[in-house]
């Protein structure tokens, strides 16, 4: 007897009844109970079989995660389509740590990393290079097509897949991402439905120049929270084609909407696929409105608290690349750092600077001469998750700067706009 409201197919009911094992039954029950909360009437097939998991870090304290994984492995279940996963937390070769930091990372924080990665491989991890939050990049290749149903987590990847690729995925949590990939079904509600993809906010961008992606996303996220915004006026700055630069902008914009709020889907008028196809048919009735001008962006920017103990001092560590940089962003940052150093008559960055990107993007970048140019500046390139690095309480010794509003939100890092951060790391004095 099914105690849930959802209508299941005979196959799904058999799984729930334990015909494919107790563990798989529990996995399906989790998805059904979850779907029931949202009034989902059915489970629908995951059409893009490759999953993406948010939980990549073997933090010793996440015992429920490890014990659930053990149960999955013992039950003989796995994600048949494979999956990519968020970035690793550590890379000592490129993300320098002192002895004490290494001790804390290895023995306390990420003491289960190796064990957890073994678990991930057993349940379907696609390959050792697939540790990135930007799994949708060309070089990584986990790319759904418009209309595909996904079982992904990682807020920045979900909002990108929904908005820029036109795929369909709810803001799943860690574990449920894997569960959907294991059974091949997800509950049908929210951002999977046409109705759920309608915008309930009209956002008007009326700034005098192209807004900083991370601040604009932050402003919208904090205003609309989990709702869907339809953004007017951004195409004036971005154009109407999803070029590499535009996709990189939308990646950073979306990550800020998702972390400073809970946005899972946005539409950009005349630019993103559904907005181009359906236009204002995507607007729900009685939309609320939010106007963003220069003053509003400035207000939001100035509202960010500075969490450094000594707020007057300059930063001494900088992370660029949360979410992971695209190949074009990596080239662009290299050019900007080199040019800014040259203008300042310097050879090396004045602040320890770490750029982060997907392993497959880094491998491609290393084949170019720009890699040598970047390394010559003293900056380093790695594929870690900056957020996982800043989890170490010892990182409070550093005054971390970042151009990521996501990293700012989850750590004591201080946010700077791209132009400001470039000046800081290359030693260009204010006003120049």
């Amino acid at each position, binding site marked *: 007897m099914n105690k849930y409201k959802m209508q299941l197919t005979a196959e799904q009911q058999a799984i729930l009844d334990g015909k494919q094992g107790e563990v798989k039954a*529990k996995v399906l*029950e*989790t998805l059904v*109970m*979850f779907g029931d*909360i*949202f009034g989902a009437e059915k489970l629908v097939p995951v059409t893009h079989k490759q999953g993406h998991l*948010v*939980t990549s870090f073997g*933090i010793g*304290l*996440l*015992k*429920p*995660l490890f014990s*659930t994984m053990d149960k999955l492995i013992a039950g003989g279940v796995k994600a048949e389509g494979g999956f990519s996963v968020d970035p690793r937390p550590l890379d000592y070769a490129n993300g320098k740590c002192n002895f004490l930091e290494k001790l804390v990372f290895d023995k306390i*924080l990420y003491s289960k990393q190796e064990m957890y990665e073994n678990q991930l491989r057993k349940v379907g991890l696609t390959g050792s290079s697939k540790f990135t939050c930007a799994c949708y990049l060309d070089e990584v290749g986990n790319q759904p097509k418009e209309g595909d149903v996904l079982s992904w*987590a*990682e*807020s920045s990847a*979900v909002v990108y897949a929904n908005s820029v690729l036109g795929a369909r995925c*709810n*803001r*799943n*949590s*860690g*574990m*449920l*991402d894997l569960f959907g990939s294991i059974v091949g079904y997800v509950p049908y509600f*929210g951002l999977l439905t046409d109705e759920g993809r309608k915008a309930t906010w009209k956002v008007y961008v009326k700034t005098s120049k192209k807004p900083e992606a991370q601040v604009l996303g932050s402003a919208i996220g904090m205003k609309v*929270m*989990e709702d869907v915004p339809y953004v007017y006026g951004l195409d004036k700055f971005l154009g109407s084609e999803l070029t590499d630069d535009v996709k990189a902008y939308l990646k950073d914009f979306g990550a800020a909407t998702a*972390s400073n*709020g*809970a946005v899972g889907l946005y539409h950009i008028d005349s630019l993103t696929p559904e907005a181009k196809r359906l236009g204002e048919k995507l607007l729900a009735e009685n939309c609320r409105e939010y106007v963003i001008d220069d003053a509003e962006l400035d207000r939001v920017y100035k509202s960010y*608290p500075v*969490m450094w103990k000594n707020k007057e001092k300059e930063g001494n560590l900088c992370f660029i690349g949360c979410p992971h940089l695209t190949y074009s962003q990596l080239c662009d940052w290299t050019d900007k750092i080199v040019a800014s150093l040259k203008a300042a008559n310097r050879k090396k960055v004045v602040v320890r600077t770490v750029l982060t990107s997907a392993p497959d993007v880094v491998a491609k970048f290393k084949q170019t001469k720009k890699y040598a140019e970047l390394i010559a500046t003293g900056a380093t390139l790695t594929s870690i998750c900056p957020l996982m690095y800043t*989890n170490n*309480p010892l990182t409070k010794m550093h005054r971390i700067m970042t151009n990521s509003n*996501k990293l700012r*939100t*989850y750590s*004591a890092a201080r946010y700077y706009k791209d132009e400001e951060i470039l000046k800081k790391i290359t030693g260009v004095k204010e006003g120049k």
Partner: protein
Amino acid sequence: MKQFKGRVLAGGNWKGEAVVSHQGVNTLATFQKSALKNAKQVYASDQNNPDIYEKNITGKALCLPITIGSTTGGLVIQTVCAMKINPAAFLFSQHIDSLAASGIVLARIWENSPVIAIDQLGDEFLNTVKTGDTLEISEDGTVTVL
């Protein structure tokens, strides 16, 4: 004394103290510091949420509109429930969001946690209840502000 009726997601009877956030609670930012320290109590560590920042929320009724932030959110709720340092109840004024729902379901099914969750209590609930108020929760989803 004022009563509110919500939808029961994970039921239970309980009486205790409220901690109120008028803005969305960022689950990862709120719980991560205490969870990482293996602390016995959670002191909310989200610097962007002045309503609950540095307040002890373990064993309390966390009253909130929804949760926000990273999609690790559900796993974080499952973890603090497994560690038994979770709020005793999550009382949502709005429809529960997908991350919090994941966490409640994972905690119930995989950890046998007694965590209580009620949603759709309405805006008036959040306007009425204050941090430090005593609340009584009934199995049927009734929340009484005493």
